């Protein structure tokens, strides 16, 4: 407090660091949480059985990655605990241009994924299809529109037919939307000449003991969400640069204040030592004084930070349009999640850093001669 206005400036900047670190990490945790929940609800359910040749990152594998649904899983499929999906490639001609798309066949009555597949359960001459809003925008189609699709069946024979869009859904998960057309499973199986076959089989709930089959491999949440976790982690590293800079500014100010304080209070230090305090005790005294900045900053941060962070957790942070086109699930509004661990760890980090920074300049005290210090001679 001895440094007056300078102290308050230090405390204010430090309190900003507190609030911004907690807010930023809360946003990332909220984003991560929302992305995980959305991905589970829309795409991966409780885990997925992949056909042994299926590799979503290698389109070359799509031609061969299909097979009969294994009999061991049929009971679970009939019970509604598993949902087979057939995936194949096709070509569409939006605006007269050729575009490769993925056709995905799913049971219209499925309840496992949040995809609104019910409209597929209709009797029309064309093939009924549902698409996401991103796909609808890119191919300029809306509900009720028609489009010709060309594909090659399991024997490589060309076939073509009209599809009719019976529904357009909005989702935060681009990986079930971009470049994809959802059709009734039985229609796609017939089109591709692949009766009773699938590419992936999605589980309703998390499977602790997957059913072992010869040509299907079970992929759990850890595996399927690893990309998402990795992406959030890299975002977190990128974002932390901002609060590291803020923290550095605060630390520089504290360091500077401590140096000035030791210079101005030489006589006091000399007197302390003359009265019998060891150098270590004096260093501790000044370090604690410096560290008090951190505690004061935490209190100030609490005064304006708690209402701000609370308001954010209710109102959320609106993401700019198009953010979710980057390939990962991003909600329109991200609600930050603040955990107790987050608040405690942030407070501890800031306090430890403040203490270290407060301690560094006080090492000068160790070099001081008490007599010279009392005289006020410059060190």
């Amino acid at each position, binding site marked *: 407090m001895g440094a007056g206005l300078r102290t308050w400036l230090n405390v204010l900047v430090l309190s900003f660091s507190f609030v911004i670190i907690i807010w930023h990490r809360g946003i990332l945790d909220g984003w991560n949480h929302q992305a995980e929940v959305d991905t589970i609800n829309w795409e991966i359910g409780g885990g997925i059985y992949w056909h042994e040749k299926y590799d979503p990152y290698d389109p070359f594998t799509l031609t061969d990655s299909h097979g009969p649904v294994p009999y061991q899983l049929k009971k679970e499929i009939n019970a509604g605990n598993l949902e087979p999906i057939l995936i194949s490639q096709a070509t569409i001609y939006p605006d007269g241009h050729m575009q490769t798309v993925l056709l995905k066949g799913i049971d219209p009555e499925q309840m496992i994924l949040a995809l609104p597949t019910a409209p597929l359960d209709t009797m029309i001459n064309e093939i009924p299809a549902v698409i996401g809003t991103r796909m609808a925008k890119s191919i300029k189609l809306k509900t009720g529109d028609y489009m010709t699709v*060309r594909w090659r069946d399991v024997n490589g*024979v060309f076939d073509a037919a009209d599809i009719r869009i019976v529904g357009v859904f909005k989702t935060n998960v681009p990986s079930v939307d971009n470049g994809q057309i959802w059709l009734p499973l039985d229609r796609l199986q017939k089109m591709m000449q692949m009766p009773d076959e699938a590419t992936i089989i999605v589980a309703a709930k998390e499977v602790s003991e997957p059913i072992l089959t010869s040509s299907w491999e079970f992929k759990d949440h850890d595996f399927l969400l690893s990309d998402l976790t990795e992406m959030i982690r890299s975002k977190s590293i990128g974002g932390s640069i901002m609060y590291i800079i803020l923290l550095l500014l605060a630390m520089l100010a504290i360091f500077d204040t401590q140096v000035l304080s030791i210079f101005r209070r030489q006589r006091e230090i000399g007197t302390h030592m003359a009265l019998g305090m060891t150098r270590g005790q004096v260093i501790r005294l000044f370090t604690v004084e410096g560290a008090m900045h951190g505690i004061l900053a935490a209190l100030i941060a609490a005064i304006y930070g708690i209402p701000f962070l609370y308001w954010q957790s209710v109102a959320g942070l609106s993401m700019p349009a198009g953010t979710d086109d980057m390939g990962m699930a991003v909600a329109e509004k991200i609600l930050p999640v603040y955990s107790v661990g987050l608040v405690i760890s942030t407070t501890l980090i800031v306090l430890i850093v403040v203490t270290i920074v407060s301690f560094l300049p006080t090492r000068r005290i160790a070099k001081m001669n008490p007599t010279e210090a009392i005289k006020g001679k410059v060190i």
Partner: protein
Amino acid sequence: MFFRKVIITIIVLFSNQVFAQDISANEILKKIDANLSADNQVISSKMVIHGKRGDRTVESKSWTEGTEKSFTEYLAPARDKGTKMLKLGDQLWMYSPGTDRTIQISGHMLRQSVMGSDLSYEDMMEDDKLHEVYDAVIAGRDTLENTVCWILELTATEKDLAYPKRKLWADQKRFIPLREELYAKSGTLLKRIDFKDVRSIDGRWYPTRMIFKDVLKEGQGTEFIVDDITFNQDIPAYIFSKASLKK
């Protein structure tokens, strides 16, 4: 005298009719294959791609042996110069001088168009002799560019042919297709090829300009112009090796 002329005319007309009826659709296909196929051929050609932003011309030279082996080197424009393609059986490799790398084209890439044209890599690879893989019937007669044609309807005899149905307008005199339409299994028309500028080369009739049109796609299609073609040459075996891609 008058009766003699009438009788002769009737005989001539009748004999023409008999000749026309006599030849079966499959024999017509064989004759067409005989015109278009050779043990090997070397072609210098231009591919004119009519796009929305204007035309683009790609020049190339190809060496082909039977239906299994083919090697193409692109000569122009500058950005495609040096690109080479090798087809061996059902495999296709492409060498790009820019990256100095050879890649195998397979899976969905085979369905992409070749250099933005109306031809896919798959189309380029499919060159079976028609009479070996299709069963034909004469569905009618038509006149295309003042030439009387048979309309042949072709149905695939093998279940893994890309186009299960084709319609072919065959020149009744020269046994050359003047138009071909390729259909999907559902009967949807997918592609149309018009064969023009038929010339007699080495004792056979050969169309030297072909216009390919993907009918589902907008645009004027792609023209394939044969500048020079020679049949049954001595092509060294090394041409059809992967090593020749980098030469």
